[in-house]
């Protein structure tokens, strides 16, 4: 594999052919915001937070899905991009019922952290306050759709790492919802193995351990890297 040299935010960096702008940037300490990306599973480019400017390209590019090229000049933090990201986070905050004060993930939530890092102290849009159910039928975990941002990390980790494909997306547009199996309560799901990977990758308090109260839910996101690395190196065989 060949090495490619490119410029990100004025910094000369190198990466292997096939790597994305996102992963090369993070390797070099340039932390492009993201919500749907998590290392170890495939990328879908759904949150649009990692959009970057690439010189010579008319359109903004999703860093998590754009492969690096020799001589590329990338900017990840221009005023235009910052304004877009801020508005995206505000859109999310207004979309469902993100009330940190009563959330299990308060203090350990990626959405909350994004808002904090962008200096969002109020939302300029009208809150939608939709009515969404909470599924606590599973013995060990709960799913609160009011806090879901539809990043589909749970769908992908369940399908790609656990191999169960319990989760999927139902409906469309603002009415989209994550469902287990064919829309049965999580507790009645026959495909769910109860591994809890979905709970760990969920960026917000939408998926949580039962029994945790406000601000007690801490997620272990490092496990995924361990599993995927071990699988690739075949550490479990023989």
């Amino acid at each position, binding site marked *: 594999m060949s090495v490619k040299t490119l410029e990100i935010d004025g910094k000369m960096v190198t990466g292997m052919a096939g790597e994305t702008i996102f992963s090369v940037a993070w390797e070099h300490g340039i932390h492009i915001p993201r919500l749907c990306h998590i290392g170890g599973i495939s990328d*879908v*480019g*759904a*949150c*649009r937070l990692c*959009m970057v400017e690439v010189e010579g390209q008319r*359109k*903004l590019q*999703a860093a998590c*899905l754009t492969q690096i090229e020799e001589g590329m000049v990338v900017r990840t933090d221009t005023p*235009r991009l910052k*304004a*877009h990201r801020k*508005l*995206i986070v505000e*859109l*999310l905050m*207004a*979309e469902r019922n993100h009330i940190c004060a009563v959330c299990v993930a308060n203090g350990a939530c990626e959405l909350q952290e994004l808002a904090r890092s962008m200096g969002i102290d109020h939302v*300029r*849009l*009208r809150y*939608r306050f939709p009515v969404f159910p909470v599924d606590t039928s599973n013995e060990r975990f709960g799913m609160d759709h009011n806090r879901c*941002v*539809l990043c589909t990390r749970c769908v992908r980790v369940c399908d790609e790492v656990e191999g169960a494909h319990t989760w*999927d*997306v139902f*409906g*469309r*547009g*603002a*009415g*989209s919802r994550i469902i287990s199996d064919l829309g049965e309560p999580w507790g009645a799901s026959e495909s769910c193995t109860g591994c809890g990977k979905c709970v760990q990758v969920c960026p917000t308090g939408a998926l949580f351990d039962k029994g945790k109260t406000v601000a007690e839910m801490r997620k272990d996101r490092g496990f995924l890297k361990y599993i995927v690395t071990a699988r690739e190196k075949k550490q479990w065989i023989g």
Partner: protein
Amino acid sequence: MTVEDLLEKQTEETERQAALENRILCCTAAGCVSCGADGIRGAIAGEIKAQGREGKVEVCGTGCMGLCSQGPLVLSAADRKLYGNVTAADAAALVSPNPIDRQALAPREIDLGAPFFIKQTKIVLANSGRVDPERLDDYIAAGGYQALAKALNEMTPKETVEAVRKSGLRGRGGAGYPTGLKWELVAKQAAPVKYVVCNADEGDPGAFMDRSVLEGDPHRVLEGMAIAGYAVGAQQGYIYVRGEYGLAIQRLQTAIKQAEREHLLGSRILEQGFQFRIDLRIGAGAFVCGEETALIASIEGKRGQPRQRPPYPPESGLWGAPTLINNVETFANIPAIVEKGAEWFSAIGTANSKGTKVFALAGKIVNTGLIEVPMGATLREILFEIGGGIPSGKFKAAQTGGPSGGCIPEQFLDVPVDYESLARIGSIMGSGGLIVMDETSCMVDVARFFMEFCMEESCGKCIPCRTGTVQMYDILRRMTTGEADEDDLAMLKGLSELLRETSLCGLGQTAPNPVVSTLKYFAGEYEAHIRDHRCPAGHCGLEAKEATR
């Protein structure tokens, strides 16, 4: 069927038709069917029997003859007379050999010399009003499948691609990507399996071009696809047609069966080495499935939502194989290009937009219906000569390109209708929907309507489109009820930019277009709604009740 058989069949059928005293063609496209065309056809058939005219007079169906506002339409082929608003009571006179009886039809006669007819140039719709879409022989008599025969016998796949490239044909789905270039990209891929896909998921509000082509001349699309299959090296084609188009689906199924039986599709086409199968895939009512990557996902049996491009379908499409996706109207142009040559085609139209474009005229216009005009015709010609003008009052705007397009105000009536010119004035060619508005239309409400459409059709995958359209719709709705202020207007502009620049697919990227173009040309109307809580068109008061439900 061999090529000789094809020519023989053509002569045979042409002679049979010429021997008839008259052929009565009833429009059997959806518009006329919905106002009773089937009953009229039945009545004419009954009269033929009653008057003992079997074998002399024949009644058959045909594709959309364009003037939908005066349907049901019936064409008398022998004397080339078109009748509108026909009722079952007219059947006897239509069938009668007696010229005096036929005079009773005079009030129903439509002047075929009117600008509506003579200003049009028909390539895609050439067979509408000539051919029965349910009879293969009719299509063959009109020269059908001879372009496929020519490609197979006289041209290499490379020459076929070259002919399409030279013709200057561009994608009729709206974006206008050069068709020949797309074919070349697929043809160059060294893959054992390739696919040809016809996008018939026409979903723009007010658009019915592809529907009319499929209903009126399904074999033309099949022939175009088979030629494409030969040119790019594919053996399998899919037509992704929306489930709402029941009649189109039925006609396609009939046409595929007929063509396969005669070896014009399937294996050993025209008794030669080439094979090409076409199957239908029926959409389940999602507008976004007209986006090519979502369409591919849907055919694969997955959730119909778009994915990031590149890779583009010519590189990695259906099941990862190189895939050629063209729109119905694009494929319908192919047989004519192959048969008559690239030079003939490229002589029609403008420097960068060749050929013709089919438009569905709707809204505040006298002649609502389906038209086909050369590229470069001005809006003024289309609306005031062919369209017959605005029935009551004054022209205000024309909306092209559906929810992805823009509103064109009066000052641009003389702009030629081609891809570049429309883009310059903030609209797009789109698939061919053309909605005309007069002074009673409120432009804020028009923007609200299209935003509501996008909001309901957003797949929900990416955040800007999923929730941005909800917020934009909410602001526009509040404008029409007098609840919005200056901050809302600023936010509307900000969201427009966000959606355009960050949405994942074309649906979200172009969703702000109706808002942006109305803001540009009708800014005063927005201000009147916000500052004075007043609607200059006097339209919103009514909408307010409905919108606050």
